[in-house]
């Protein structure tokens, strides 16, 4: 019979990109309980809707998170557009899809790097982030910002992206695909890497459903659910597969994210080929009145945007349910009974975005 000890983990910890605190109750090397506490970076962005013009709020929504910035801006614009009955043009929808997938790529490649860092493979970490830089360069060329794009607006996009620029992305994507193949092979086939990932944090399909998980974490346990199939933006016209894995462990989650990058490349290729010509912005008149709930698939999983408007230029209420928020219960579940050395891997496995969660 050994005695229990409590180890504080975070909010400042080398493996954590963002501040979350966990109280790990240990028995020898085994974690028997993990108590999370959050609230270190709460900024009150949701209540800002009552003080900012509904159009200026797009900039605030984009800044909820630095990695899924486009997803947040999109969720907000989509909700307001539904309330105001605005039909976004086809071209804007396609461009939004392309930008969304580019940001999904950079988020997933970032995650692969963080994972490599968590299990101590620095070389792999550096290499994935080198590749990510190419995605960021494309985003910067298209929008003018590396992570905060400021290109979305209620009614479409503030700027068109010319066709030849989009065509210019295709060879870069091909390069990325080629270079990433080496890294993905290492992630999925390397014996040393597999020994750190396989069988760590096992959650069955039923368990992830009951815990209300979402995104790659859910699909890594074999549940085939992806909000992109709801058909917002241009996803309706584009053919892509929902990547799932039946491994139900951290290896499965890595498999899903790695292959989703390749699916994103596939989506962008189709979108660039099919994109119609035309305007990217429709005029917006008046103020929104009503309420709407938008569901969309961000890189980390499904996000819900609830917006309520009252016919003035200020909205009444905005609520964001972010994917990390849905995955934290699963995190505490997987931490129970794991080894202390696996804690960083399990924390990174949900792709925590704490700033999102705390808004």
């Amino acid at each position: 019979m050994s005695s229990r000890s409590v180890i504080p983990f975070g909010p400042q910890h080398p493996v954590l990109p963002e501040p979350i605190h966990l109280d790990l109750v240990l028995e020898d090397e085994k974690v028997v309980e993990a108590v999370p506490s959050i609230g270190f970076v709460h900024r009150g962005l949701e209540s800002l809707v009552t003080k900012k013009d509904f159009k200026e709020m797009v900039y605030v929504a984009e800044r909820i998170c630095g990695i899924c910035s486009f997803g947040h801006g999109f969720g907000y614009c989509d909700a307001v557009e539904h309330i105001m009955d605005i039909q976004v043009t086809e071209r804007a929808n396609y461009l939004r899809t392309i930008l969304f997938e580019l940001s999904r790529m950079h988020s997933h490649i970032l995650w692969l790097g963080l994972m490599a860092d968590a299990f101590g493979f620095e070389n792999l970490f550096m290499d994935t982030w080198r590749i990510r830089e190419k995605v960021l360069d494309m985003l910067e060329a298209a929008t003018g910002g590396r992570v905060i794009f400021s290109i979305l607006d209620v009614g479409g996009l503030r700027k068109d992206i010319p066709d030849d620029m989009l065509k210019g992305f295709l060879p870069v994507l091909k390069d990325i695909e080629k270079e990433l193949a080496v890294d993905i092979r290492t992630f999925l086939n390397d014996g040393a890497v597999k020994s750190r990932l396989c069988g760590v944090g096992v959650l069955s399909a039923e368990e992830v459903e009951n815990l209300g998980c979402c995104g790659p974490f859910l699909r890594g346990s074999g549940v085939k659910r992806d909000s992109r199939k709801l058909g917002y933006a241009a996803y309706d016209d584009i053919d892509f597969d929902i990547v799932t894995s039946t491994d139900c462990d951290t290896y499965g989650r890595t498999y899903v994210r790695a292959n989703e990058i390749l699916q994103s490349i596939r989506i962008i290729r189709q979108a660039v080929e099919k994109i119609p010509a035309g305007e990217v912005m429709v005029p917006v008149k008046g103020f929104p009145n009503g309420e709407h709930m938008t569901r969309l698939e961000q890189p980390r999983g499904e996000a819900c945007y609830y917006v309520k408007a009252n016919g003035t230029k200020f909205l009444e209420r905005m609520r964001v349910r972010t994917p990390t928020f849905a995955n934290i219960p699963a995190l505490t579940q997987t931490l129970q009974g794991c080894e202390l050395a696996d804690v960083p891997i399990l924390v990174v496995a949900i792709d925590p975005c704490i700033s999102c969660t705390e808004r």
Partner: protein
Amino acid sequence: MSTVNYVGQALKNLFSKPATCKYPFEPREFPERTRGHVENDMDKCVLCGLCQMRCPTGAITVDKKEQTWAIRPFSCIQCRSCVDNCPKKCLSMDRQYQEPGERKIEKKFDLSDSQKEALAAQAKAAAEKAAAAKAAMEAKKKAEEEAAAKAAEAGDTAGAAEAPKE
């Protein structure tokens, strides 16, 4: 399944050129759309204040009396909203990022002398036009009044003329 999977890439990384650029010696080339910081061409600004109104962070202050345009660069989020809304197109987005600083400063710009003169001339012209319009209005009003008075007089005389007939 081998542990030497990554060795090829690692060796390649060892002998190839670094992926990063040697920053201070080799300045970064920004793409055309990069949003670095806001610049104002004080030769063209008319101090209309639209940029101040459209700035989501309130980083811009336009003072019409002092004829200055000021920006707090550390509050600016490089959203480009002011640049898109400026009617004179005097604002522009420079590609170089804002330089770091020790304090949150405010950069104030005086209107250029030529633009001050131009604005003054414009204001004078506008004032003259307004004065002329006012004078014209008054003259018109006077004329109308006179006409009305005349008509009333005529009506009176007509009434007087008609009265005996009944």
